[in-house]
């Protein structure tokens, strides 16, 4: 086939597969299967051994696309992470993200030895699957209508955001060792410190710089702002990596710093990044599914299953309990944190590295990793909501209501427009607007009642279920929260 046709065919196939994934998403959520896994399975079904018969074995391309997708996903994760809640759990999360990863990798290497795999395979495998992915956990909990207690949620979220760099560094170190570019333990340890420190510092500086730019920049079209945010994500990964820091850590930290506080154009940036992260998720898992050869998996099935079980029931709980020993977590919290160590795309992308480096055991490890990730996500994922309920990890707070209207500004504006849903216990429910003592410089702008827009007049009474849009100055927020309750989320 010639070129214009070839490209058309590729786009058609890709579009159909992506669309199929999106359509299937709702059924996956209902069945308690992590969405990512569903995409992976669709990729496998479309692949060379499956119904689709699409042959894809381009490991370098898969690595590039996978890493790029991870950059967007991590940046989106960082920007949606509340810096304040991370600060509360920074020490335990950092310990889990460093020592915890090391313990998991070591433990899994031992476990691999137990099930009769050679040391090389075990060490590689341990390093590759040592990082966790919290996105799947939160998606599943949201699907089940559950909200976790704040500290537990913050711990697993921060752990998963921070632990990818360590897994990358370990994988690179082991791969280097196995392909004959050994640096020695001391050199490797020093390298890891430099990478983590450089990554954190780079992310911090670039996040600040991005914020500085966004605070001052005026753009001719609204769509350019998120484009700038994505550009920042790329630089936040690339530049620190070029200078010897960890790009994954840098991009996550940069996202967190950028998203902290009063980010200009927040609504449009978050919306575009959300879409971008979803697109990357779907594409990445599809591609990884295509890259797997189910016919080759048979050999990996038994040891893979054994390792997934050992990881979930022995290695991960041990690592978590050891890391959390100095902190005041309850026994139930530790059990829950142990249980939700779901593995995501990072291990599968990392598993490509040894294949690329020509490590003899590379492909075998790739198949094993695939098995460990899939089994290790299916089982805990299926019962994560039940586990949260059983262990009493639910937050007493109701989920914030969703806003029905959204305002975003192109330029820089002082003051915020915040919306509230009027609930019966709120002080303002049933009150006329003229009775609400708004501070100077704050006022109700608009009320959405059912499908109608209501013009706010002095005599307008607020009713249960009204969405009230309030213009407020930041210093008046505490009073308005007291009167109106919890703000809606966009």
């Amino acid at each position: 086939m010639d070129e214009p046709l070839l490209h058309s065919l590729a786009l058609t196939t890709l579009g159909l597969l992506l669309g199929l994934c999106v359509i299937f998403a709702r059924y996956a959520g209902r069945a308690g299967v992590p969405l990512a896994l569903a995409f992976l399975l669709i990729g496998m079904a479309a692949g060379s051994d499956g119904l689709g018969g699409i042959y894809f074995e381009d490991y370098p391309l898969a690595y590039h696309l996978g890493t790029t997708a991870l950059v967007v996903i991590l940046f989106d994760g960082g920007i949606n992470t509340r810096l304040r809640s991370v600060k509360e759990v920074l020490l335990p999360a950092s310990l889990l993200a460093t020592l915890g990863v090391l313990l998991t990798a070591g433990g899994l290497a031992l476990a691999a030895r137990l099930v009769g795999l050679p040391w090389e395979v075990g060490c590689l495998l341990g390093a590759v699957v040592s990082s966790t992915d919290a996105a799947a956990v939160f998606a599943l909990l949201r699907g089940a209508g559950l909200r976790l207690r704040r500290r537990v949620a913050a711990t697993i979220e921060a752990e998963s955001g921070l632990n990818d760099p360590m897994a990358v560094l370990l994988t690179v170190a082991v791969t280097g060792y196995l392909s004959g570019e050994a640096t020695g333990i001391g050199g490797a340890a020093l390298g890891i410190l430099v990478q983590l420190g450089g990554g954190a510092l780079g992310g911090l500086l670039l996040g600040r710089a991005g914020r500085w730019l966004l605070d001052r920049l005026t753009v001719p079209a609204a769509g350019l702002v998120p484009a700038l945010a994505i550009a920042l994500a790329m630089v936040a990964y690339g530049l620190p990596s070029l200078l010897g820091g960890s790009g994954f850590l840098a991009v996550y930290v940069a996202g967190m710093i950028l998203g902290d506080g009063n980010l200009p154009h927040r609504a449009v940036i978050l919306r575009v990044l959300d879409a971008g992260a979803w697109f990357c998720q779907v594409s990445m898992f599809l591609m990884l599914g295509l890259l797997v050869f189910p016919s080759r998996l048979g050999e990996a099935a038994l040891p893979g299953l054994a390792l997934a079980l050992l990881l979930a029931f022995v290695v991960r709980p041990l690592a978590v309990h050891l890391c959390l020993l100095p902190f005041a977590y309850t026994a139930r919290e530790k059990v829950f944190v142990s249980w939700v160590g779901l593995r995501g795309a990072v291990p599968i992308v990392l598993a490509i590295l040894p294949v690329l480096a020509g490590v003899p055991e590379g492909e075998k490890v790739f198949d094993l990793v695939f098995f460990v990730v899939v089994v290790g996500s299916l089982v805990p994922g299926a019962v994560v909501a039940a586990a949260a309920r059983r262990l009493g990890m639910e937050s007493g707070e109701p989920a914030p209501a969703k806003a029905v209207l959204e305002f975003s500004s192109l330029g820089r504006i002082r003051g915020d427009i915040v919306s509230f849903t009027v609930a019966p216990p709120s002080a303002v429910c049933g009150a006329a607007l003229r009775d609400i003592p708004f501070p100077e410089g704050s006022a109700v702008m608009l009320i959405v009642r059912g499908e109608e827009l209501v013009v706010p007049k002095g005599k307008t009474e607020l009713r249960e279920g009204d969405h009230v849009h309030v213009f407020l100055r930041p210093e008046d927020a505490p009073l308005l929260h007291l009167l109106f309750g919890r703000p809606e989320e966009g």
Partner: protein
Amino acid sequence: MRLSELLPASQIRIGLRASSKREAIEELVSLLPLPGGNGAAEVVRAVLERESVLSTGIGRGVAVPHGKTEAVPRLMASLATCPGGLAFEAVDGEPCRILFLLVSHPDESGPHIRALAQVARVLNQEKAKRALAEARSPEEIVAVFREDERREGL
């Protein structure tokens, strides 16, 4: 509206005994002059219902639990200080040292809201807040509100 009139010394407690949010609200409600001494449980329920929307621990050591219920005939208030600080799930995670309870009849939303705004305004002043937190008698607390009313010309 004068908070000093809403808050006689008998409805003020220096040094809260409670050790949890629920106990604190129960203790604050026990200070109210409920008609016939009935309905405390219903008032506590109404206040906790409002807490479930969003904690009224508005930050910097202040909480203003409130609610609307038919168990009270009119707007009522009580206040307690807690020198050691009490975990109240405040928005900034800080322990609360001043707790101001306001409950009203559901038909009285106007006065209820005005009183809330008044409380928020007074407790937003660092000096008044310090004087309240360090007060050694209910009378000193009332004096802080009187002083504010004098200055505001209320």
